[in-house]
């Protein structure tokens, strides 16, 4: 829950619905007004089923009539990838096009981006994107919990089988990593954009390196591996898998670290420190002078 609210706040995005709350509310309303509502719900469900049936029929016809090559492509997909394809065709196809070939001016081709990319984009909520802008922000994920993991995996599998590309190892476990080494690598490779605190920083013309606060181990790994958006790629030849784990260990450790010097002021550096000396120090002491001495 805290993660979610942190995300929403972080991206400054207006969330359309809050499912937890919304669900509870609908449920309550249903209980309260069950007889009256049933008819409406039933009507709606009926309409949806009819619509789906029509779509499936149309899709089936299309598949039957479509060129043989594409049918063949589809035939080689694994079971998981088939699920992924279904999800893709439902949620991603508008921008990324048929078979992830990309749509000019809307979305890039996903051929060769690999499952790592998909996992990063989908589990961080960046995809599906809300709109085209300077940079796709992290937001609440489209799916939740178990479903999210499964769907991201299926989608990833689909994209992977379409065009290959970087893949995440099955297990991203930074528990045995060298934090000190990770720190050094973080400062050389990551701090220039994400800042010493991993709190993010501004890039040119409205773009930014996001904060790593909500990022999971796998997301950080995937980001390094694939270089999402304007982030450079850090392939395995540049930062070995072990070095990546070192960096993750440092970042996650630093995030979890309780500041030894008191409240960290957001770890923004001298800007918030300067603000604090005026808002706390000078304000407190000016009030003190007002009390100590006369006012006129």
């Amino acid at each position, binding site marked *: 829950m805290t993660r979610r609210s942190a995300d929403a706040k972080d991206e400054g995005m207006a969330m359309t619905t809050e499912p937890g709350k919304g669900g509870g509310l609908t449920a309550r309303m249903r209980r309260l007004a069950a007889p009256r509502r049933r008819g409406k719900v039933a009507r709606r469900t009926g309409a949806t089923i009819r619509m789906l049936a029509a779509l499936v029929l149309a899709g089936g016809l299309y598949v039957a009539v479509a060129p043989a090559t594409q049918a063949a492509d589809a035939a080689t997909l694994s079971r998981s990838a088939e699920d992924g394809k279904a999800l893709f065709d439902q949620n991603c196809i508008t921008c990324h096009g048929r078979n992830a070939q990309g749509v000019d001016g809307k979305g890039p081709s996903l051929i060769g981006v690999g499952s790592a990319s998909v996992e990063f984009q989908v589990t961080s909520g960046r995809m599906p994107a809300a709109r085209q802008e300077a940079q796709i922000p992290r937001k609440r994920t489209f799916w939740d919990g178990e479903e999210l993991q499964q769907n991201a995996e299926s989608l990833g599998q689909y994209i992977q089988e379409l065009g290959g590309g970087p893949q995440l190892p099955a297990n991203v476990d930074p528990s045995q990593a060298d934090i000190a080494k990770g720190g050094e690598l973080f400062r050389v490779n990551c701090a220039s954009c994400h800042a010493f605190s991993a709190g993010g920083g501004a890039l040119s013309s409205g773009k930014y390196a996001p904060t790593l606060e909500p990022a999971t181990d796998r997301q950080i790994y995937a980001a390094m591996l694939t270089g999402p958006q304007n982030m450079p790629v850090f*392939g395995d030849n540049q930062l070995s898998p072990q070095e990546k784990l070192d960096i993750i260990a440092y970042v996650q450790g630093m995030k979890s670290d309780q500041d030894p010097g008191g409240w960290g002021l957001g770890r923004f550096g001298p800007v918030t420190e300067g603000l604090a000396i005026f808002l706390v120090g000078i304000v407190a002491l000016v009030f003190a002078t007002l009390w100590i001495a006369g006012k006129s």
Partner: protein
Amino acid sequence: MSTHETTEVPDGAKAVDPTDPNLTYREVLEEGLRRDEIEIVHYEPQFPVPGTKAEKRVERLVAFLLLLCGLAAIAFVVIYVSPLGQPEEYHFGSNNWDWFTPLLGFTLGLSLFGIGMAILVYGKKLLPHEIAVQQRHNDPSSPDDRALAAGTLGFIGSEFNIQRRPLIKGALGLGGLGLGAAAVVVPVGMLLKDPHKGDPGGHDPYMTTGWNPEAFNNGKPVRMVREDHTPVRPEDVSTGGQMTVFPDVPGGTTNEHADSPVLLIHLRDEDAQTLRDNLHKYPVNAMDGGSMWNNFVAYSKICTHAGCPASLYEQQTNRLLCPCHQSQFLITDNAKPIFGPAARRLPMLAIGVDDEGFLVARRDFDVSVGPAYWERPSK
């Protein structure tokens, strides 16, 4: 401190003898004040009737503040000597030690707050109110005093009578000048260092970096290494990736060669093509077959504005941003500055691959790296 003292007795008042043992303190004080031209125009005890409830309340407040001061100070000492202050090993996460500094600051602050407030409350609430008026004297010294001082100075001058002794006058001028020169020359001379000498082989440090084969590598092209001294092969940097590389010379990765760090970028095909097409726009980079190697390009990391590492690489817009003053450079156009205070391009390092397949610098930078200076060659 007061320079004015009046012993004149004002009209209608009788002279007071401060040594008179029968005088009260107050009377002596007022005589002193009178002599210092001070008058207490308003003097009012806060509690005309001693021992009222209100007075007791203020007394209790002062006592409480003093006790608070003492208690907080004791707490400070206890925390200071407690095991909390024994960090042993600091690991990320929540440690007991993380509470040590905040608790010390809090208790010390509280203790000082207690004593400060106690003093202030005592002064404000228990001491009588007073308004005193002291006269200022805005006039300068009296004409007499001025004349006396001027005359004295004049006489001192005439005692020297330097005007009549031209020999000494001349000698004094020369001697003083010499001594002054000595006083200046020693500190300046101690610090002074020729900026354009100092690198091995008589190279100009402002024109030489760790990539200079002659100065640092016996004439062999210098390999690119990472911060842990491992050499770099082209395949180590993925397409759309970048790597900070250092010259493979002694101390190359340290601050010894602070002007040498280079950002090695592996461009995508189309971006690399754009850059190749643009190289001739800045002829230095097009020299000798062009400074790029395949899709690789290497720019000095040292910003041409103030010398920060310009290392915020945006792989899709191909911009390089310097985080200190936000200068932005377009990588696909010879790192031309397109925004911010930087006026000059980031120098490009001519790169190639040696026999063993490692990336090298074919030669040192063709232009001076980093911030500009007065005599910077404008090549």
